[in-house]
């Protein structure tokens, strides 16, 4: 039963997460509310690992979330379900590429979805922040790391490694 549920849920994510890997985050948040497959804290760990291991982040998170929900088979099924809509839709797009790229209705729809997706990601960020950030020290930590990201646009892996070290140091000292 979990196989079917998992595939339906990740199929939906693959169909509706428009704009790349991190867009899947709010959808995974909804799954954490709906099922006991993983908690939101675990989700934060998954995002970090998916950012710092090879492979597109959205695919990594699907494998990870599926694995957490029910082991290796679930990880594979979740990933396949996630990419299935892409395969079907992109094959259709490839067949009628020129017609699609200038279709005015498609542009309308996407123009409305992008701001909504931004709102979704903002909410997911705030919700995660509420769980992760508990005291003044954490706020300071967040501010410093975020400022560094805005100033030096480096690969996220650098910041994740740095934060891991900072986390250990802060807790030990």
């Amino acid at each position: 039963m979990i196989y079917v549920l998992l595939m339906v849920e990740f199929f939906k994510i693959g169909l509706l997460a428009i704009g790349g890997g991190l867009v899947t985050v709010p959808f995974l948040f909804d799954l954490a509310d709906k099922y006991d497959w993983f908690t939101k804290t675990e989700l934060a760990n998954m995002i970090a690992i998916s950012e710092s291991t090879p492979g597109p982040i959205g695919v990594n998170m699907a494998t990870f979330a599926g694995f957490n929900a029910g082991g290796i088979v679930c990880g594979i099924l979740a990933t396949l379900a996630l990419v299935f809509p892409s395969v079907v839709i992109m094959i259709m797009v490839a067949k009628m590429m020129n017609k699609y790229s200038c279709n005015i209705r498609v542009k309308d729809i996407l123009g409305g979805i992008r701001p909504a997706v931004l709102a979704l990601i903002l909410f997911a960020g705030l919700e995660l922040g509420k769980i992760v950030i508990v005291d003044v020290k954490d706020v300071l930590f967040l501010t410093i790391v975020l400022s560094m990201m805005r100033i030096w646009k480096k690969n996220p892996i650098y910041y994740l490694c740095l934060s891991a070290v900072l986390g250990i140091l802060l807790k030990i000292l």
Partner: protein
Amino acid sequence: MRNLWKLFRLFFKVGLFTFGGGYAMLPLLKAEVVDKRKYLSEEELLDLYSIGQCTPGIIAVNVATFIGYQQAKVKGAIMATLGIIMPSIVIITLVASVLEHFTDNRYVIYAFYGIRICVVALIFNIIFDLAKKNLKSVYNILMFFGAIALLIGVNISAVLLVVLAGSVALAIGEFKRRLIK
């Protein structure tokens, strides 16, 4: 058959050496499919990226499927997609299984404390980038606050919100065109 296997290997390699999101794989993809194999030109690759970004699904997967289809039709699309997701499946499964044994290690817990804060920072970082790109017109800002209102007011699910936003935008666009006529 050899062609299909080649597609699988090509995208396996791209998946293996991509860290992060779809844009991180652009330089590697360019080196492989534009410079080395000449499957498409640099402009075509960039066009493909914009299509991949506004079609459902993970950008990297969309780009792989598209190039696979161009090279060897449906079979090519499937092989390219399997190629790009295979490293993720193997590596994440390994990491997740290993991690299960370290969840009560003190240092791992401390490290993840720092990492989680970094993840929040990464999400806000993306929000800044997206806001700069997507909140340029009054229409977009209205759609954005409409979505926020629904999220706060009725705690709408992500799936429903995306479907609703798309339908409303389509209706408004259609209405505007009728008005002009």
